[in-house]
């Protein structure tokens, strides 16, 4: 009953999104051939039971399934978040029937009383307090979401009833509710977590959550597969798939062959470079969904040309975005104007305010004369080559760096590519010593949950206020004031207006030169359906409605 209603909802939403995506906006906003792409964010729910589905994780085997420590595509099917993220990036009640600020600094979460963990024990307020407190640990992936919670664990997050949890804040926080629809709001069992200790989420330690699929004892065989089974008592209806097994395929072409041959049933985030293979004859179909992911590059130094906005603007003006899209993502992307993509806010309250703010930004265009002028005007000494760091062996990044190099050449900037080993590249992001001698770094990122503040905060705020990637030392009083006002706003309209005001100032300074927005690419066997195909898959049980056609 419940499922049918949801299924209808999913179809309607897919159709609606397809329509909006196909409606041409202004001509500069679209890539080469937008009419050919149909954007679908969820496939119609399955109707037939299926014994076994084999799913490939394109990113390789995860290090852990602990939702506080990692983000990967397996966790969302195992652990529910307090609020439920929909394929269109809207937020619905989940384990929490409501989660709202009752005054500017007090947030109350009311829980359903019929949700149980896999072992049959009910979810209590204590379990939710324990789970949320994981985010208070600086080691947590979601630490930033809890930054304004009263830091003392005894008073910050407390159980105020058998099914009620209250979170106290030091200042109002307009972003907290959205974060609960992501893994920052993942619910785990306290007793299990405390017994497992550091091993929680590892092959040895296991996990105890409430999600539609269960991780059995010994279900994770390190190096080969993670086997999960349907949770027959799932509060939102049991899944149709009895056993969902994840395998790990790092090699893009091996994955493409295994998928099109039907040996693996599906995968999310398949490589755009195999587009022709996926669109040819094969066991399944490629679905293109909305994503918040984008490619960009940014400065890694507070000195020299890279730290000068004029140099970044010049490089941006010398890069042909359409060519970039064709080369790097095989046409499966779109021109994105700034750090925060449209899909991030399209289902938020005041979405029209955010959209108007986005539309008002200048479109990236190629203008070599103006670019050369900017290099001259910058007053920077550009006789020494600027170093661009990319991870070694990653084709998309090598291409990105090569395109940057070619663009630089046209406007008198000499760029040198430094391919770094994965571990060294990773170290760039926290070890200042590793950034010495590097001027730019090319990156790819996505946002798991709706919300506009978290991502730009990392780049535009001073380091002590959360700008941990603000390596160029950007410090604009106006931007900081608007960003802070947006986070501390107590009504949605003020939050939207403050953010748009901040964006209008920081976007032209290109703290990250956004090169392209990309789509979420999902390949699924033609006998199956029901998968979430938008970037919401990172934060919602995307296989809940998976089943036979």
């Amino acid at each position, binding site marked *: 009953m419940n499922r049918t209603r949801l299924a209808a909802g999913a179809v309607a939403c897919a159709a609606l999104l397809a329509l909006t995506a196909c409606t041409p906006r202004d001509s500069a906003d679209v890539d080469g051939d937008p009419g050919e792409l149909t954007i679908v964010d969820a496939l119609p729910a399955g109707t037939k039971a299926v014994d076994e589905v084999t799913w490939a994780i394109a990113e390789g085997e995860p290090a852990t399934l602990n939702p506080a420590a990692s983000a990967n595509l397996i966790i969302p099917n195992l652990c529910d978040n307090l609020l439920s993220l929909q394929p269109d990036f809207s937020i619905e009640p989940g384990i929490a029937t409501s989660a709202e600020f009752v005054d500017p600094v007090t947030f109350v979460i009311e829980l359903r009383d019929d949700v149980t963990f896999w072992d049959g024990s009910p979810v209590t307020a204590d379990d939710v307090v324990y789970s949320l407190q994981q985010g208070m640990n600086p080691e947590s992936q979601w630490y930033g979401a809890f930054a304004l919670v009263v830091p003392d664990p005894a008073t910050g997050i407390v159980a105020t009833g058998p099914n009620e949890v209250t979170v106290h804040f030091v200042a109002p926080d307009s972003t907290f509710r959205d974060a609960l629809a992501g893994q920052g709001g993942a619910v785990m069992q306290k007793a299990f977590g405390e017994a497992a200790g550091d091993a929680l989420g590892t092959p040895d330690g296991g996990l105890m959550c409430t999600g539609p699929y269960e991780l059995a004892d010994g279900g994770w*065989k390190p*190096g*080969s597969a993670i086997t999960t089974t349907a949770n027959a008592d799932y509060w939102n209806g049991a899944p149709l798939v009895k056993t969902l097994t994840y395998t790990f395929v790092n090699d893009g072409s*091996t994955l493409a062959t295994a998928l099109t041959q039907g040996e693996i049933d599906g995968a999310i985030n398949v490589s755009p470079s195999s587009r022709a293979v996926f669109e040819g004859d094969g066991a399944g179909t490629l679905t293109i969904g909305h994503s918040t992911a984008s490619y960009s590059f940014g400065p890694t130094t507070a000195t020299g040309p890279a730290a000068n906005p004029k140099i970044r603007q010049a490089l941006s003006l010398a890069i042909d975005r359409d060519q970039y899209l064709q080369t790097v993502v095989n046409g499966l992307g779109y021109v994105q104007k700034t750090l925060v993509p449209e899909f991030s806010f399209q289902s938020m309250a005041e979405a029209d305010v955010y959209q108007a703010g986005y539309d008002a930004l200048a479109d990236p265009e190629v203008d070599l004369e103006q670019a050369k002028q900017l290099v001259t005007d910058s007053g920077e000494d550009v006789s020494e080559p600027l170093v661009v760091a990319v991870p070694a062996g990653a084709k998309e990044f090598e291409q990105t760096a090569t395109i940057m190099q070619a663009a630089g050449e046209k406007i008198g900037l000499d760029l040198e590519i430094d391919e770094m080993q*994965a*571990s060294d590249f*990773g*170290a760039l992001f926290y*070890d200042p010593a590793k950034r010495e001698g590097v001027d730019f770094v090319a990156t790819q990122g996505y946002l798991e949950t709706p919300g506009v503040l978290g991502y730009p905060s990392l780049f535009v705020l001073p380091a002590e206020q959360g700008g941990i990637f603000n390596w160029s030392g950007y410090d604009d009083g106006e931007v900081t004031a608007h960003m802070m006002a947006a986070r501390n706003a107590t009504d949605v309209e003020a939050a939207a207006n403050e953010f748009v005001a901040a964006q209008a100032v920081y976007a032209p300074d290109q703290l990250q030169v956004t090169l392209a927005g990309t789509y979420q690419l999902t390949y699924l066997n033609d006998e199956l359906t029901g998968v979430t195909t938008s970037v919401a898959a990172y934060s919602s049980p995307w296989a809940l409605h998976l089943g036979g056609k």
Partner: protein
Amino acid sequence: MNTLTRMLLERLGGLLLTLFLASIVIYSAVLLTGDPIAALAGGAKPTPELIAEIRAEYHLDDPVWQRYWEWLTGAIQGDFGRSFVYKTAVTTLVAPRFAITLQLVLLTVVLILVFGVGSGILAATRGRAVDRAVATGTSLGMALPTFVVAILLIWIFAKSLGWFPVYGEGDGAWDRLWHLVLPAISLAVLFIAYISRVTRSALVAQLHSEHVDTARVRGIPRRRVFGAHVFRNASPQILAIAGTTIAGLFAASAIAEVAFGLGGIGSLLVQAAARADLPVVQIVSLLLVTIFVVLNAVADLVSALIDPTSVEGGALA
């Protein structure tokens, strides 16, 4: 003490010394390759406090020799440390993957011995035309790197004909064998060609030797001369080369494992190196060295058993 026992003891001593030296080299080389903090922090953005905590927990600030000593004493007791990435004992990580690599290598060895030695014998004994044909085949085989063979096999036998799976290791004995056939062939081609050449030249050298001529003149049947003299005398040389080849297969299998999505130690090593999972890189490297050294020793020993005179010759060197 007879020659064989002495050789055995010498071999054992040499083996332990090699392993000890290898462990030092591997331990220090791995330390030089990268900063483990990124792997240890597991993707989170570490604060300075967290970095300090991790450094203390994993003794990263202790002197290298002290860390090596702790690692070595642990390893002797069967504790090879915990994976930085999976936070689990590396032995539980390596054991199931080793089984897959072992099965792949065994199947490959069967292919190499049957087709490599077989075609070598044919080339040496069945006249000029066969010799030419085998020579052409082996030239081609030697020119084909494993990953090219893998792509060809996937394209022909998995995609076009659909006879074999392209991915994974399968469940159960038959399914496993079925999944390992193409990876084993892709791995074997180069070595079949190599062993075939070695076999042929060793046999040809024996066929032209004096004692074979003498045996023939004495009227001993061809078949018996070949078995008792030619092949027997040539086999230590073939075995010595085959031993090295087989030992090398454990490392070479990484290419086939990655191409066919097999979860063996080769693909584990590739992933662990990319993620700077140092304890895993250490144990897999050491395991590969151990296998190499042990198999070489075994090959020498078997050669010695077949032909004790070879002990005094090249095999002991």
